[in-house]
């Protein structure tokens, strides 16, 4: 989810400590004091929405139903595409870091 919304912490989002692309009501992006602070906000706001999700599709659909993104028509498909690409990127990262 964070990989999609921040495009793998694109420098703009990294500078704002904003991995979820949270905006001020669809306007300017929010700046957090730390990524941890951003995660805490997201947990408070959406934790109950996604709690108990049984799959990545279920996770995304719950957010979609909660109007997480009303602007992008194919948002759900885009998020799923990134989620499905994570194992490949993660494997590559682990190999580079000898993990």
């Amino acid at each position, binding site marked *: *989810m*964070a*990989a999609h*919304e*921040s*495009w*793998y*912490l*694109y*420098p*703009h*989002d*990294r*500078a*704002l400590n904003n*991995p*979820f*692309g*949270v*905006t*001020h*009501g*669809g*306007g*300017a*992006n*929010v*700046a*957090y*004091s730390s*990524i*941890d*602070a*951003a*995660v*805490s*906000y*997201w*947990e*408070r*706001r959406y934790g109950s929405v996604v709690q108990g999700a049984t799959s990545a599709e279920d996770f995304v659909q719950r957010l979609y139903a909660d*109007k*997480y*993104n*009303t*602007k*992008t028509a194919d*948002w759900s498909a885009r998020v799923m595409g990134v989620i499905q690409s994570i194992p490949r*990127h*993660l494997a*590559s*990262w682990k190999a*580079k*870091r*000898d*993990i």
Partner: protein
Amino acid sequence: MFEGMRRLHPRGPASQGIVVDSDGAMLGPDCVLVRRTPEGYHALAQSEAGVLQDLLLGPDAEHDWLFHQSRRIAQALADDHLIIAQILGLQMPIGELDVSRLKRLAALAPVLKANFNPDQPRVPAGSGRESGEWNDEGGGSALVPAAARRTQARGGDPDEFFDTVYSQISCSGAKARHRRDLAARLGGA
């Protein structure tokens, strides 16, 4: 005949463009490019300059141009060459800042301020903010995600992303525990 010419703006809340004076350089009222400190003039950090450049100059601009130009301005001011610094400011291909860009710069300003030397004064004239103040950290009711998300033409580095979220190899103790906790909270292993 002068309508299309670039011009410098006076420092202050009404500024809608580039400011270069003996106190430093700014974009609009909020965004500091070069700051005067007791130890000299400091340009903003490379990464933050990159963010600003993406916002203002677009993808076709020379890599790190704004960063290097800010440093050139800082050097000229340090050498007491205000006129040269102002000419360097006028070389920036940025005209009058419209309301949209001023708002985006204002949103970025706290981040940019935070990345100057924290031991130095952090409040630019006309910012209207306290030193080091951040935007709302999520407590406000108006915070909603992605309803009008910008189009992003390119992404960050997945490896750096995973370093941030998962990395446990370069830290230990409390920091490692924090990283593991963060990874778990973001949905990682």
